[in-house]
């Protein structure tokens, strides 16, 4: 039974990772037509280094993801504290309304954002993409930081107050250090959500500018080159690195 379950889990992981491994392997294969035998070569990474469009899009993606991580984590943490530590009218309804956007198809969210941004004059552009990503990341941040806040009651903050700490001192000396692992995790999540986001970015990108996922899509439509494998391999390494950091960080954070 044990061996069977091991074998089963192995199959699941193989199913998940084999296509990715093939893609990464092909990024290092000299042939443009996926011919075997495998010949190790960095030719596609060199081609990538010369591809200005792809590099510009990568830079946009990293920049937007980083800004998104900072903004969404900041706003989301404040919201999580409000939800966890204060009572106010409509709190339950507001908490409930946080989750549906996660389940609404991105295509629909992207379309509605495009219409809304057009109608309000925000328009399209990197700023619109960033705005969309922040909106999308907020629920994740609130949930992750909120879970951390729930893990300790308000008693620690009360204790700080009895010792003479002002609300600001209490936040900086007690609340923030306590939720720090959650905040870091939330920031990594927000970065990943933005970095991987395609649909919203695609809808909100103005002609001539784009993010990495959008650029990859465009490139694929024009004709697939192993350069895509190369850039995808880099993205996979970054994404997995982030998620491993999240996993590690969250275990460290758990009580």
């Amino acid at each position: 039974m044990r061996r069977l379950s091991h074998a089963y889990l192995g199959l699941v992981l193989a199913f998940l990772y084999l296509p990715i491994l093939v893609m990464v392997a092909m990024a290092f294969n000299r042939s443009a037509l996926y011919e075997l035998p495998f010949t190790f070569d960095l030719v596609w990474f060199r081609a990538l280094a010369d591809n200005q469009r792809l590099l510009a899009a990568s830079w946009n993606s990293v920049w937007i993801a980083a800004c998104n991580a900072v903004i969404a984590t900041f706003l989301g943490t404040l919201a999580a504290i409000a939800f966890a530590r204060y009572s106010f009218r409509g709190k339950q309804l507001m908490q409930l309304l946080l989750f549906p956007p996660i389940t609404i198809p991105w295509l629909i969210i992207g379309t509605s954002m495009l219409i809304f941004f057009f109608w309000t004059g925000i328009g399209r552009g990197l700023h619109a993409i960033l705005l969309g990503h922040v909106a999308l990341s907020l629920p994740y941040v609130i949930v992750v930081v909120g879970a951390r806040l729930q893990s300790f009651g308000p008693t620690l903050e009360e204790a700080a107050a009895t010792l003479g700490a002002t609300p600001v001192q209490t936040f900086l000396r007690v609340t923030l250090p306590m939720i720090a692992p959650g905040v870091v995790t939330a920031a990594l999540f927000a970065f990943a959500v933005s970095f991987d986001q395609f649909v919203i970015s695609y809808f909100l990108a103005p002609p001539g500018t784009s993010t990495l996922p959008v650029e990859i899509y465009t490139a694929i439509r024009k004709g697939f080159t192993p350069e895509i494998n190369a850039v995808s391999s880099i993205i996979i390494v970054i994404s997995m690195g982030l998620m491993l950091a999240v996993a590690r960080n969250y275990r460290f954070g758990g009580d």
Partner: protein
Amino acid sequence: MSRVDVDRVSKRYGQVVALDEVTITFADGEFFGLLGPSGSGKTTLLRAIAGFVIPDRGTIAFDGEQVESVPVHRRDIGMVFQNYALFPHLTVADNIGFGLDVRHVDRSDRERRLADLLALVRLAGFGARKPRELSGGQQQRVALARALATRPRVLLLDEPLGALDRRLRQEMQVELRDIQRETGVTTIFVTHDQEEALTLSDRIAIINEGRLVQVGAPVEIYERPRSLFAARFLGDANILRGTVVDRSTLRLADGTLILSALPAAPVAIVRPEKIAVLPAAAPAAGNVLVGEILQAVYSGASTTYRIRVAALGDEPLLAFVQSASGDVLTPGAPVLARWSPEQTVPLQG
């Protein structure tokens, strides 16, 4: 060190009345126990003094200065929470020094104060540890040192020993008492443990349903409870009901007369340890009830008897007898239960 005046403080939560016109004065340097069942309002009163609960009506003053509108962090209090609420990310030293740090006390003063406090709670050398590396009793002492660090005007303790096992609790009671004496800080603590309240307090307030039932020194409340609630909440009590015959006599349902030194009332109590249990033939004066042993529980130093007494109906008489002779009466034995009129406590409520 302060006097604390609570004047006609009321607090409701929806339909629930947590505090109902509570008026009480905590004297400067006093060790005061708030005793009551859960939900009695004792914790609400403590949290109102701390500033976490804003009274609907009434005033709270420290040394005559009203504090209802002063936020917690400016009330200059020290508080020990039920589960200590030590900051897990800080060392023992930084926990204790927290109140000094937020007040920007300069470094040499901080270190000196820290050393004094660690010595006071017998934790010298533990400064660099994290709270989770300490035992329950040690954590309790850190919480106490932290609360005392800023020399608060009032020290508030919320079930401070509740999380400790019995043995440790008794040790800590003595220690807490000593530390309170040494610092002289006005201390108000909440407990539902009657023994703890009796051992620690200069005075006790018994609280029930948001009202003060009785306030007084432990010996006063125990020996002269004014109501059935106070009598039963603090210790055990045999209840005697009847009609008042004259100033010092109560007649039970079956006609037995109960004498009291104090003015008689329709309801009186007698504490189980005041009752002498004698063989049926023994000569006896004072209040004497005839009965038979129902149950005898020997516990070393004393024996607890439940005695069936016709005069009391179904309710057996409870008597604690010191094991002076070493003899234990067996169930079924006919006995006399005797106590002197001074030990009969007529109740007012």
